């Protein structure tokens, strides 16, 4: 026996069909208007977890990038300082050689050389106080504004300054004054002071100072090399960040974003289906035997 169709069962069925078609259309429209495949966690629970992880990775990457940019700024300031320090120290060395060649004369020429050495020393102290963002780059983690006081004493500390520029990639970006200019009391500034005094008193005793100056120069060059390597490391990290960011965005988009063309076709199909269902329901429900009896 075929199933008896009654007015209520027919309308129940039509209603159920209309509701399911309508809710499919509503879901598609929600995705379309938000631009997201996942509008709530239950749309795709595992996709939601992946999307949250990717978003976290992306945010961290942004932070790494900011840290790398800051590190580059710091390192650039230090780099400029190193170049000037090397130049000035070489100038000082030339002056010392000149003083040695002049022999034991302690006349005005030696005094002039000593004046120049003093000037170089003052400049070097000023360069050693090079600051980035208000902090002396060679002063460790000091809260003060300078690494060396005008007398050439180190007033910074031996703290390290680090930036995390990637997962498991924390870079120390600072070098402290003593590690560059030599231990306090026996550093470049103390030597230059000694040279200046020696020039004025006994230029012939300059010999040992020359080799000491050479040692200081090589120590500065070593520090500069370390700084250069760090700079390069941060740059590599930064370019890694860019490619990581692109990869993460692509993955996130694949999970989270809709395919617009695909979605547009789905919405329009669902729309047509819904209209057809409405139309059919409206016309079928109008008919009854009464229409044909006279």
């Amino acid at each position: 026996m075929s199933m008896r169709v009654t007015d209520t069962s027919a309308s129940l069925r039509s209603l159920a069909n209309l509701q399911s078609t309508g809710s499919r259309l509503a879901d598609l429209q929600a995705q379309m208007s938000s631009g997201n495949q996942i509008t709530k966690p239950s749309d795709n629970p595992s996709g939601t977890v992946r999307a949250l992880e990717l978003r976290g990775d992306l945010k961290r990457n942004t932070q790494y990038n900011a840290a790398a940019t800051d590190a580059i700024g710091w390192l650039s300031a230090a780099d400029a300082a190193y170049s000037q320090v090397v130049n000035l120290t070489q100038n000082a060395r030339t002056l010392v050689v000149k003083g040695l060649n002049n022999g034991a004369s302690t006349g005005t020429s030696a005094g002039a050389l000593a004046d120049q050495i003093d000037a170089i020393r003052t400049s070097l102290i000023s360069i050693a106080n090079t600051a980035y963002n208000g902090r002396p780059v060679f002063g460790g983690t000091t809260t003060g504004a300078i690494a060396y006081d005008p007398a050439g004493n180190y007033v910074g500390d031996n703290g390290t300054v680090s930036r995390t520029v990637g997962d498991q990639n924390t870079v120390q970006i600072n070098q402290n004054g003593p590690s560059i200019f030599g231990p306090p009391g026996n550093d470049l500034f103390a030597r230059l002071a000694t040279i200046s005094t020696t020039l004025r008193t006994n230029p012939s005793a300059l010999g040992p100072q020359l080799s000491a100056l050479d040692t200081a120069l090589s120590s500065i060059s070593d520090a500069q090399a370390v700084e250069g390597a760090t700079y390069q490391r941060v740059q590599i990290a930064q370019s890694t960040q860019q490619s990581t960011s692109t990869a993460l965005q692509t993955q996130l988009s694949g999970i989270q974003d809709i395919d617009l063309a695909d979605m547009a076709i789905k919405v329009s199909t669902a729309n047509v289906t819904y209209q057809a269902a409405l139309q059919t329901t409206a016309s079928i429900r109008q008919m009854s035997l009464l229409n044909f009896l006279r």
Partner: protein
Amino acid sequence: MGSTFGGISNASTAMGVARYGLDVIQQNISNATTPGYTRQSAQQATVDSATGVPSIFTKPAGMGGVMISGTARMMDPVMTARARTEQARSAQADTTAGGLSNIENLFPEPSNTGLSEQLNDFWNAWGTVSSNPGAVAPRAVLLNKAATVASTLNAVSTSLSGLAASTTQSLTNDVTSANTAATQLATINGQIAIASATGASANALLDQRDALLTSLSTLVGGVATINVNGTADVLVGGQSLVAGVTTTPMSVGAGPVLSVGATAVALTGGSAAAEVTSLTTTIPNVQAQLDAVANRLSATVNSGQAAAFDLYGNPGAVMFSGTGAAGLTVAITDPKTIAAAATPGTTLDGTAALTMSGSGRQAGGPDSLYTTLVAGVGSASALAQQQQTTQDAVTSNVLQLQNSVSGVNTDEEVSNMLTYQHAYSAASRVLTTLDSMLDTLINHTGLVGQA
């Protein structure tokens, strides 16, 4: 046909039956859209011979006309019972899915505004502080981010409590409605028993009975037993809610625990079953997980603070106070008391802040706990929606089958109407013919030869 006038009474029974048939059709058409109405049908039977009539008039024995033997209620008891069961399951599935959807709405993920993103921002703010530990602005931003995270956790927790309160209200309403329906059913049971004993038609009462049974199924998963006399008994969780004219009211106790009379029961279906599960399991679980996120966040940050030193050189103060998602607050107001330095004394060391900024990817950290929470809620909601869709399809199918037996089809009623109309016309024609024959017999016989 026996007696001279037998045909007249025979024709009149036919006309009477046709008129009764039309009455039933009128009732069916009037109630075509009445919820719970069961189609009725006039049951006819032939009258073999007019019993109790003197034999002289009944010989030779012959057809004695037609009579109404009853008015049937067109329903399939098995299908109706199954419809009740499926409706109870549907109500449970609908309520479960609705409840989970409400919970899910509290976690708008993935988005730029959800807690996940706020936590990311919070950890990143530590990174910014570590890059510039001496500046107050990044520290103030960090405090703001901390406050945002705390207030979101507070708000979600409050909403969750609100959901629990409204679910409790729904449960109370369901139980009150079930008790009302049970009382009405007991009254109707009494009326049905009387009607059944006196042989009166109880069809309308039976429709009301079925409507109440459906209510009890969808509310509390009541299981009905139909007795021979048409009365119905209802069990809830194995305990008798309605037995004949007696009801044992249900109540909601703390927990919530439902009881019938003094006996605690576990519901097997209906919206109340879903509400109990939601209140005893689902919402407390989500709340516990949310509290775990808050407590882990607080523990991670506070232990980091305690081991580090602030801008004044002192050990860091407690940043998050209070326990649970509802109680979490930011305890410090001075940005300089955020501990960023790993070494004591007044330094611009940012190592501790740098370490803290990496806590977001810590296994078992607050972020990972929160992600697990969101995934759990999402999966549960997706499963509930799937079950709801499946169950609704089954229920809708069963209801259609039930309705295909019990429902009114206007076309069918109209065509039956035509049949009765023609039967009435034909019976009238028989009467006219008999009248004409009797006229011939009475008025036109024995007149031969009269002038």
